[in-house]
Every structure is written in C-alpha cells, then in structure tokens.
C-alpha cells in the first residue's frame, strides 16, 4: 500500500507518504509555505510560482504545491533566494492587478494583498496595463468578474471543472490577455453554471466577487463571522454568516475553510446566496389575531398568547385533548421540536404531534 520515507525540510526530519507533495509534508509539520493558486480540493496548476522552494541537488527552485517528495529529499523553505522569489512574484502579480489594498478590498478578501503585507515586495513596479476582458453583458445576479484584478491563476476554472464539475467558465485568450470567460462569452445564467459561488470563494484577488456584498461596500475584515448551520437541505453545511453589527445585517455567507467541516469548503446556491429572506420586508413583525369582522389585525404578544391558550384549552375542554393536533417543523431547531412535543404530550396529554418528515 502506501510506502513511507523521510524528507528533510528546513532541517526537520519528517515522515512522508508516497505521492505526497512538499507542501503537504510541510503543512503537517506546520512549516508555512505561501500559496496563491493552490487549493487542497484541486489538482495543482503550478501557475503562480509563489511557493517555490530550494531542493538540494537541483539548480532550479521547484513549486512546493506541485512537486512530489521522494525519500531522502532535502528541502529548504527559508533562504534568501526563496525570500527574494516571493517578493518578486508578489510584485509581479500586484503589478498585474489593482495595487492599492483599499481599492482592491471593497468587501472581497484578497489573499494576494495579505501575502504582500506579510512577505513584502521588491519595490514599486509599474502596473502592467493588462488587456484582460470581462464578458460584455453578464447580468447574472450574484457574480461580478472584474478582469483588472485577475491574475489568471485558474483557481476558479479548476474549481468549476473539478469540484462543481459543470465547467461553466474557462480560461480564454493567451498571454497577458488571458481572461476568464464562458462558451461564446454568454452570461453565466445561460451556461451550465449552477451559481454555487465556489469560483468567488477560491479567487485569491477579489476578481471574482459577490455583487450584493460589493454593493454593501464594507471590507470583509470589518465584518464579524458567525458560524452556524445552513437552514435548507439535510446536508448540514456549516456557514459563516458575515455580519455588519452596526447595521444588524447579514451581508454575505461564506464557507468555513475546506477540510474543516462536513461541506469541505463548499456551498450550493441556496446556502451561499439565498439569504435575502432574512432581512426581507415581508417578514412577520408582530402577532396577528382575527377580529370579530374576520380580519387578521395586529395585536400585542400578551393578547396573542392569551388567545392561543384560550383557543387550545377551549378545544380540549369541549372535545378532549385528542381533538388537538400539533404540527412541528423540520425547519425549527431540535430544542424547539422537543418543546413542541412536550407541549402536546405534557401540556395536553395527546400524542397528536408530527412534522412534515418526508419532504
């Protein structure tokens, strides 16, 4: 089965497994190697070159994300040459995108800028005027592609190919003109795209970004993330609700990192985007009771609860408890379902309690 051997990374002797990359071995030992175009869920592209490391016996540096370890390999990740390369690569990519962090961030996190802050750059670079193009008329509701921020790392297209497996987007054109497009430059909603938003999630520069969050305008680091469980299907994806506290508002929904929860960093269109309902003006905001004229009119909680208890007790007195039915909900929490059946069984001594279990 799996053969294992040893590698030496920065002087640490590590066991490694056959087929493993330098990056994987290093991560297990908590040795940090920066990456831009890498994602654990995807096959390596070796496109961005930020992860280059030195390997003894080889003149060229090699990408840690795409190079497999071999037993006895000696790797160095902290050398002046490695550092110089990181700064050089970061400058190169920055010159190819928006350089000003504040501009670049408007609500889209940018790993590129984070890394530039962390590892530094090699001085000022004149921006390349990149001729990348967006799609002429893409009126899809969720995804804004801003070509001037793209570094053609292909994370988005690989995600769409390999994880969502619908291949709705693709790299188009060559060289500095390389851009992300669709077949015949059609709007996303006319393609096989399922609006999962995964491409937005993996983009390291904010070139793929969420329209609604963009319009909200606060940088992501000013939002508070609240971890919770999705309220749609039975997969139980973990979500991070990105909340603007001062406005009491869920601005967008992101996934916890891959490898940490049951959804492995992925979400579907409902979990990621169908959150408008939370702050919708149609939400019920006050109790209603039916008046003499047969209309539902606003009431206080006290009045409404009184009506509820009178109504339920009235039926129980006149027709017996088994004339009452309690329908609970798979949309509510476990605790709420517990209380509903307790209300039926202990409050009214009936087992007439159920929920729409099948749908």
């Amino acid at each position, binding site marked *: 089965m799996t053969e294992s051997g040893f590698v030496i990374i920065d002087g640490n002797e590590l066991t490694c497994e056959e087929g493993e990359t330098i990056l994987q071995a290093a991560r297990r030992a908590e040795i940090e190697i920066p990456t831009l175009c890498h994602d654990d869920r995807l096959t390596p592209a070796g496109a961005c070159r930020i992860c280059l490391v030195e390997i003894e016996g080889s003149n060229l540096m090699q990408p840690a994300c795409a190079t497999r370890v071999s037993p006895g390999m000696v790797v160095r990740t902290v050398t002046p040459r490695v550092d110089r390369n990181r700064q050089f690569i970061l400058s190169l990519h920055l010159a190819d995108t928006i350089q000003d962090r504040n501009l670049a961030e408007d609500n889209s996190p940018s790993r590129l800028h984070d890394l530039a802050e962390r590892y530094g750059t090699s001085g000022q670079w004149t921006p390349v005027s990149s001729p990348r193009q967006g799609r002429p008329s893409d009126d899809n509701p969720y995804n804004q592609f801003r070509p001037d921020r793209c570094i053609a790392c292909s994370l988005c297209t690989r995600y769409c190919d390999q994880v969502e*497996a619908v291949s709705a987007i693709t790299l188009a054109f060559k060289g500095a003109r390389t851009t992300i497009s669709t077949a015949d430059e059609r709007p996303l909603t006319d393609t096989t795209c399922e609006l999962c938003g995964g491409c937005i999630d993996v983009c390291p520069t904010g070139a793929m970004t969420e329209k609604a969050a963009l319009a909200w305008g606060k940088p992501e680091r000013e939002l508070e993330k*609240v971890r919770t469980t999705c309220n749609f299907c039975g997969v139980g994806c973990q979500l991070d609700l990105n909340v603007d506290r001062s406005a009491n508002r869920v601005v967008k929904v992101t996934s916890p990192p891959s490898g940490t929860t049951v959804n492995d960093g992925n979400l579907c269109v409902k979990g990621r985007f169908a959150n408008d309902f939370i702050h919708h003006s149609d939400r019920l905001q006050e109790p209603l009771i039916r008046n003499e004229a047969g209309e539902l009119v606003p009431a206080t909680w006290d009045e409404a609860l009184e009506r509820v208890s009178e109504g*339920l007790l009235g*039926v129980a007195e006149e027709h017996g408890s088994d004339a009452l039915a309690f329908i609970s909900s798979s949309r*509510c929490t*476990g605790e709420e379902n517990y209380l*509903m059946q307790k209300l039926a069984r202990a409050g009214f001594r009936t087992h*007439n309690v*159920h929920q729409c*279990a099948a749908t």
Partner: protein
Amino acid sequence: MTNSIPEIREADFLFVIGSNTTEAHPIIAMEMKRAVQRGARLAVADPRAIWLTEIADWHLQLKPGSDVWLLNAMAHVIVTEGLENRQWLEANTENFDAVRETVLRYSPEEAETVTGVPAQAIREVARAYASTEKAGIYYTLGITEHTCGTDNVYALSNLVLMTGHLGLRSSGLNPLRGQNNVQGANDSGASPVFYPGYQRAADPEVREKFGAAWGVEQSDTTGLNLNEMMKAMGDGRLRGLYLMGEDIVISEPNVGRVEKALNELDFVVVQDIFFNESCRFADVVLPAACFAEKDGVFTNSDRRVQLVNRAVEAPGQARPDWEILLDVMKRVGLKQPEYSGPSEIYSEMASLAPKFAGISHRRIGREGGLQWPVTSEDDSSTEYLHKDGVLRGKGLFQPVEYSPPFEETDPEYPLILSTGRTLYHYNAATQTRRSEGLTTKQPEAFVEIHPSNARKLGVQDGQLVDVVSRRGRVRCRAMISRQVRRQAIWMPFHFPEARTNYLTTDAGDKVTGTGEYKVCAARIETVDQAAATQASFPGSYAAAVEG
C-alpha cells in the same frame, strides 16, 4: 444515513435511486462527483434523465412507482448467481430464505416489461453492486413518497443485507434528508409514535419515564400521523391545530381537501417567519425568528448534531420559536423550569434520551458536530452505524411484493405525474422566492413534457397548459424536455400560484402515512393562448377548491 457524508468520496460503487442529488443535495452530489472522478462506478435509477445520469455508468430509467420490481429483480440476480455474502448474512441476519423465495419470482426479463429497464442493465448493476466492497446506496423522496414507500425501503435494505454492505466505511443504506432538520425533528420526538431518542410511545415503561420526568401522566391513546391528521381535520375528529414552521397548504398532497378542512376547524395557530398561505386560515399568527436569529441545534442526514448560532436580531417583535413555545406552555398551565436558553433545553432532552446522553451544546462547541449515538461524556461521535454487527441483534429480511401505485393511468388521465424540488427553490419557496437571483434563474412554475407527447398534444415549449388530475387543475408553462420518460410529466412544487399539490393524491404509505407525491394520473390540456395571459396565471386554485 448509516454512513457519513465525507465517506462518499471513498466509495467504489454508488447506487443512487429516487434522488435528484445534484438539485436537492448539491453538496452530497459534489462528493459523488469526486468519487466518480476517482474511478468509482455510478448507477442511477430514476424515471428522469437527471444530471447525474450524465456521468453515470448506468441509467436505469424505470417507470415511476415500479421500484420494487427493479430492486427485487436485482436481488433475483444476486441470489440466482450466488453473489450473496453467505458468511456475513448467516452471522448477522434472519429470514433470508423468505426473501430468496420471493425474489425468485422477479426475473430481470419480466422486470424489463414492468419497469422498462433492460434486463441486461439490471444484471450488470446487481453484479457490480454485489461484487464491490465499498458500495453504498443513496435514496430520497423518490423512494419514500409512494404508497409503497416502506416496501421500497425494505427492498433496498434486503439488497444491503444479502450482500453484507453494512458496518463498513462508504457502504450502507443512506437516506438523504430533504430538510435541514428532518432528522433532528424526529430525534426530538416530533412524532406520534416516538418520544425523544426513538423511545416508543406505545411502550408503557417509556411513558412512565417521561410522565415522571415531566410530572404529567402520559396518555395511552395512539397519536395521529400527519396524513391521518389531515383526514381527521376533514371529518371533525380534530378541532384545533397548532402549526409551527410549515405551510401545509402548499406542501401537503391533495391540498384542496386540506383547505376545506382548515376552514372547518374551531381554532388554528400559525407560527412562522412569513405570512404563508396557511396563515389565511389562522385565528392567531405568531411571528417567529429565523435561523440566523436564534440558538439551537440542527441534526443533518448523517446524524450530526450541529450548532445554530444567533447572528442578528429578529425583526420587529418576532421571537424565537422556543421562547414562544415556553410562553404558551406557561399560559396553558404547564409549569416549566427557568431555562437559561436552548442549551439547557437540550440538556433536559439528553438526560431523557440515552442516544444523545453524551451530547451538549458545550461539547459541540468544543469538538464540532457530533454524530449520535453518543451515549455518555466519554463516548465518541459515531461515524457509521452497525460497525459491531447490526444494531438490535440481527438484521431482519423483509420480503416485499410489488403493489401498483394508488392511481394508475387510464384513457382519461394517461400520464404519470411526479413532483419534486429544483436546485433553485426550496419547498414552499417562502425563502428562496424572496431572493432576486433565484427568481431570475427560475421565475415560475413549469411542467416537463417529453417531446413526443408534446407533439401529439400540439404543445410548444414555453406555452401555457393546464395540468389536470382527478383532484384539481393547475396552469403553468410547458417545458419540453427529454429528461422525462415518454408517458410521464414532472412538476416542481415550489410555486404558490401553480400549486402542484392540488393535483397529487393523499393516499399515504401504509406504515408512515407519507403521501404519494411521486405518482398520480394526470393529463395535459392546451389552453387558448390569447386568453391565457400571465394575468390568469395565479387563479388556478380557486377552481380546484370548488371542484
């Protein structure tokens, strides 16, 4: 699910039946795609050419409602070719011979005439399933929403038991739950037959225990399930209804009858986040908080209890359902402990249900989601069930015979109508339809019709048509599609203005009462396109109620 979601990617054979996974459970579908990319073989049994069939090795396009025939024929292949796992089934199961005898009467050739699936394909899939170690079965409502839903599940579990695909990683029997907390609602005892933790209400000792804990003697009258409730509302046995977080006027089958019955009730409370369709029948409407505005737990398909955390304040005077329920309990005279919040409510439940005894909000916060059973503080999360042999002694084989759907086609209603959900909407769509993006992608109701049928009827793609069953009539757009079989039509049930459930039958499964949403007889009528403008679109249900 007997297995865990992350195990799917390691499977070598997947049998997906009655589940449009990419639409209803996209994240599980991603795991399936991953398995296939790794080289796993995939067999999909579904009347429609759903997306997964594009990457499947086999598509068994069976006639709706003929699942038992297909599954018994697969079992037939296994037992006649000696592919059963003798050693395992002798050690772990009972009653194999009864099933063996039954399935011997279900030959693949005959199955072909009933189900429309080639005998050869049935053979191949049965062989591949039986001979692959990591082989899992995945199903959803396409299996359960039939009058023979329970039989379908037995037929599946017979396959699992005879091949010993249980108690192993990536192999087992996996129902994918449709709603976020179906599992959790059942776990919590929102069921006439179970107290929390699947303790039987029919068992006097169980009733004794809960009676003592709650200080109220428990009733020994059997409760009604949802399907029976709907009927009891109609015949006067039920007089009052407390409805929380469900829109039965959209979601229940044969809804015309449900509406009539709701009108007859003396008292109806509806508690929800929106003014849903059922609110029209309410005496009191209580505004509830949504999931982003409260704390608690949801339990997903793989029995994973996970936290729901409050992120924002509820609008206006809306309050979390648990707070409202506690208030109601107090008002009707049921004294309640002063819970500090949902975590204490959970602890009370865990103290009464051994399966959850080791689960608490604190522990989930520390360790992440926990998969029950977790029987004590020291017990760990259970990734897959039946690891140490079948639970509760031996796995029991249950022979099942095919029984036709409640309603069969006839010259007047020649088409089989099935219903389901789509990727972009969710149930009654009260939430998803308020998302602009989802509505642009899929703005309105439609009915899928096979091109050959459409040609016969003279129906164009996108034209308005009436779908008619013995119970109602619904107007919506025709979508010409090869996804459906020739004699079948398919509709989503999310749209209040074209309520599919005016058409469906409320004939329920004999055990669970689950409605037969997947099969009813219907016909398509063309309508005068000039008169049938968008404006007449919403009006279809009034007529149905009268009729």
